[in-house]
């Protein structure tokens, strides 16, 4: 499960951010998972809970709110925005490749209007952190 490796990254980033903001305890973190990455929120919540160090009071009781962000792509040549349907536009191999490296959407998806692979991922790529709430050291 490479989800655990991404969960490691989230915990490392939360600890880094919390320390830079002088937090003593992180209470809640919003984690956004792009639809391209094809990770179920419940799976990722389990991974986050499993990898956080129980001995670190900074994150040991943090609640994670994991949400899936729909994918939106914008074609560069025709400038139109679209939402691909991964179930119909990508076969099993392509979906798995994009799951590992979301940028490989460029290898497998095409603009429905002009068939170009030259697009920007506007939203829904991979794992990002949203709001981080915590108690500040006094």
């Amino acid at each position, binding site marked *: 499960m490479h989800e655990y490796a991404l969960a490691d990254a989230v915990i490392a980033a939360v600890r880094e951010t919390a320390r830079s903001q002088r937090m003593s305890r992180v209470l809640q973190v919003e984690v956004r998972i792009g639809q391209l990455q094809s990770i179920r929120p419940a799976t990722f919540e389990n991974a986050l809970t499993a990898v956080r160090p129980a001995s670190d009071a900074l994150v040991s009781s943090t609640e994670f709110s994991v949400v899936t962000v729909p994918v939106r792509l914008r074609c560069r040549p025709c400038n139109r925005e679209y939402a691909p349907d991964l179930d119909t536009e990508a076969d099993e191999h392509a979906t798995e490749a994009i799951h590992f490296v979301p*940028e490989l959407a*460029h290898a497998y998806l095409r603009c429905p209007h002009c068939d170009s692979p030259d697009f920007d991922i506007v939203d829904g*790529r*991979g794992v990002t952190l949203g709001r981080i709430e915590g108690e500040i050291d006094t």
Partner: protein
Amino acid sequence: MIDPRAAIIGERLAGVRRIVAVTGGKGGIGKSLVSCLFATVAAERGLRTGLFDLDLTSPTDHVILGAPMGFPSEEHGIDPAMCDGVRLMSIAMFSGSTPAPLRGAALTGALLELLAITRWGELDLLVLDMPPGLGDTALDAMRYLPRCEYLVVSTPSIVVRETVRRMVQLLGERHASILGLVENFQSGDVAPSHELAAEFQLRWLPGVPYDKSLEAAIGDVAGLRRTDAAKAVGRIVDELG
């Protein structure tokens, strides 16, 4: 929004003793061959060696080494493929021979993803096969892999030397550690890149000859190791310790 991936790169590479990026200013100068030979010779010398193909749009290291490509095994991350003692990571493990046209942010995104999820484990040496030029991946390597040491590849061509000069200037400006200059495709006794090494006070490493037998050995690590080019790269490995 915070991208969490950069925060874990240091930990992913914590077991790697040394990172050597094989770079040069232009495509077609033999960076991939030098990278692959460097990695296979180092592994033959008993070093625990990894090879990361950072040419994300035109990966070829798997072809040079004859490594079977397919989705990696995963367990708390993904494992590089093992190929004759070299741990190989390439985007081709996911995309095969399907073209992956990436630009700008997509190149950075793919690089960060692979750096964040690849489990290199304990390595004495990780060789990075850099893409040509001073573009996104070169800048990302400087940013995210600051402890890289650079092995600069040149050739006798005046055109190539002009681009290598720019690469060396940029690395110097960024205070990157340059291990030395290697002239690839040497023929005869003339080594025009020596002047470049002297100008920038770079270590002049053993040259790699133009070796007609290399093409026939592509895809066969044992065959590659028998080539004159591999023997020359072996002298570089020995010199760099």
